[in-house]
């Protein structure tokens, strides 16, 4: 059993945040849910800087990443995480409205762990979110937490 690390939800749309949180709450996950409102904030969290510089160290269990985001978009966040040896192991799930094949292809090229198109149907959406939360938040084993010290020295 994995220890309960937080789930990082990166989503700019308040309604989507509310619905996603409702869905995650429904399956009574014990994980904390951290919400970042854009790509820059997500990177701040992941690299423990800005408003997150004092957060407890450790990677999230999973990053649920929307594609279209203000400032730094989802593909850029993904590219950043997957090209950095320290963050490459963090599971990233694209959770998006896009059915664009090019986005899908690009995401997999960048090393995404899963690509989920949000279903319109709420039940399906709930099931998807719950499944994601359960799998990535609880069942999936991630590599041991990295030592935070070298990360603090990193320049980005």
């Amino acid at each position, binding site marked *: 059993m994995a220890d309960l690390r937080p789930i990082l939800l990166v989503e700019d749309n308040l309604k*989507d945040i509310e619905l996603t949180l409702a869905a995650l709450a429904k399956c009574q996950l014990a994980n904390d849910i951290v919400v970042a409102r854009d790509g820059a904030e997500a990177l701040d969290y992941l690299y423990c800087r800005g408003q997150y510089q004092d957060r407890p160290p450790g990677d999230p269990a999973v990053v649920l990443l929307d594609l279209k985001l203000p400032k730094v978009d989802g593909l850029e966040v993904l590219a950043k995480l997957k090209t950095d040896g320290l963050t490459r192991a963090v599971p990233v799930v694209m959770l998006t409205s896009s059915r664009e*094949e090019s986005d899908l292809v690009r995401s997999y090229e960048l090393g995404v762990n899963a690509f989920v198109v949000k279903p*319109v149907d709420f039940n399906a959406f709930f099931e998807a979110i719950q499944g994601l939360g359960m799998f990535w938040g609880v069942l999936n084993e991630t590599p041991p937490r990295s030592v935070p010290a070298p990360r603090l020295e990193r320049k980005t």
Partner: protein
Amino acid sequence: MVSAALTSDLNLDLCAQEPIRTPGSIQPHGMLVVVDPLNRCIVQASANAKALLGRDRGSSVLGLSLAELVGESAEDQIHGWLANPDSSYLRTLDVNGRRLQVLRHQTPQGIILEFEQPPASEGETLEAYYPRVGRFMEDLPAYENVAELCSAAAREFRQISGFNRVLIYRFDEQWNGEVLAEDGDGVLPSYAGLRFPATDIPAQARELYRLNRLRVIPDANYTPVPMEPSLHPADGKPLDLSFAALRSVSPVHLQYMRNMGTLASMSISVLVDDRLWGLVSCHNATPRRVNAQARTACDLLGKVLSQHIGARDRGAYAARRIDVKRIESELLARIAANDSFQSGLAANANIWLKIADATGAAVLHDDTLFTAGVTPAPDRLRALAEQLQQRTADHFVTDSLVRQWPEFEDIVDVASGVLAISISQLHPSYILWFRPEVQRTVLWAGDPSAARQEENERLTPRHSFASWKERVKNRALPWSQAELDGALEFRNAIINFVLRRAEERAELTSQLQRSNRELESFSYSVSHDLRAPFRHIVGYTQLLRDRERSLSEQSQHYLDSINEAAASAGQLVDDLLAFSQLGRTALSMGPVDMHKVVQEIVRSVEPDVRNRQIEWRIQSLPPATGDAALLRQALFNIIDNALKYSRDRSPAVIEIVGEQRPNESIYIVRDNGVGFDMAYAHKLFGVFQRLHRMEDFAGTGIGLALTQRIVERHGGWIEARGAIDRGAEFRFGIPRQGDNVDG
């Protein structure tokens, strides 16, 4: 050299190689000396030149000064005359007591002076000829055509020269001479209307005639007078006599004259635009001298005739050019209104033919062939285009196609004359005009083919000048220069037209690409932003329902309706996006086991139809080549349709069969459902087209449009049959090879 040639078998080929410019001798009716321009001494002279000295001087003129040769007074006059090169060509001088006509011209080898004793009959003075020439010039504009003009000129030449017969003939493209006019006193036979074969005047002689316009031979039986020394002392070469009036002519030519029964001749070149247009040929049965004044008058007359013929030719050319230009402008204006220049030409066949005054025309371009009038068959046209492609020239013109390429003998009747312009350097693209064979009879003065065959006979070139009839075959009326130039201009216009169209197409393509990109970014936005609100509506209704357990039945119904509406709107967006993406996504081709695909589809729909009685009749299906996911989608939509429209049947019978044809695989899905009215069959595959009310059969109206799009992207076809309440049948074909697929 001349002496050697006299003893050998003479023929016209030999004549063609003779050194006619440097014969080494002159005719005996005058004397010739070459004067060194620096020291005025005689360096070369004809063997008879010592006669100039009078009775009791030395035996040779070589090395003498000009003054010593001709006397102080004549030398003085010649000296003044040489200083003024613009003055007249001819003087009559008193040379050591004799009145001699003197001609001079400058050559790199020295000043050549020629002395001629005037004929016994002094004739008229030069001035006396001018009124005659003047009247002739005044009458010129009245003559209708070149033949009439030449007839009048022939009369005039004979009056001035006093020869028995004057012929004026014109060269054709092959240098055969056609007698246009004749004037004679009956002593010599008439040659009117005859032709002289090109071999009669070798190319080098024609070139000499072009440079030196007037030649005289007073007596064909003359004995040549050699030059002494035979080679010029300074350069060691024989003297160039190209411009000498006394130049000795080829013995072959003298034989030719004797064969013709003409012992004296004078010929004057007619030059048009510096090209040898024809000859004025004067003959006498007996030896005859023509005084220098008469020769000068004839030379002037020849120039007048040349200029007038040139002016008429240019006038005719300009008139035809204007005519062609007018027709061409009209044609181009009409072509511009057409999609392609080929169809523009074809739609205006009469004007197209008129440009080149042709009876047939064809255009070959981009694998299309259009014709007008009477033309060879398409395969012969293509063969001709291939032949033309071997050449790199931008045009081709002939009045006898078989003379160029004998393999086209089968089309001489319609295409003896061909005028072709190339409109592409890369592909065999041509516009061609055709003229039919026009058979005519030509009278030859002597058999032109025999002229080359009488090698064993010494008395070449000609025994008989009796006319010889030849039927000219495989010939069309020749294309005029104006028509050729007009065609070349037309070629430029067409090439510009093609280029402009290509630019327009390129512009259109880039516009399409731009709007396509805009459309892509639009649908990208739609896929993100339009789906989200529907998802939110559905989500919040669900949350509300979960939260408020005590909603009234009415409220519950409203919530359900909101939910349904948003869900179907979301589905619509999804379907639309799938449809638009299909046009942009590349197919991933491969072999597809369609039988497996159908089994998988049936398994996937079974949970939804658990409560229905369905009788599946599935036969083994042939494999297909295509994009597996898309073909599955196409089949799924049809099967889903069949299930939907047969839901009131019990049992619903869904039949899925296939057929393997040589070039395609066919798949058929039949149901026993509500069917449709064939009158609306064409609407089945349109986006958002529905043949049933929404509340009867739910759906976005995109499924079949999507299926059709998929099938068409595979290069296949789809069709539907049905009748109301009697079921429907959908069948589609996918090509077996993937070659017709738009990738």
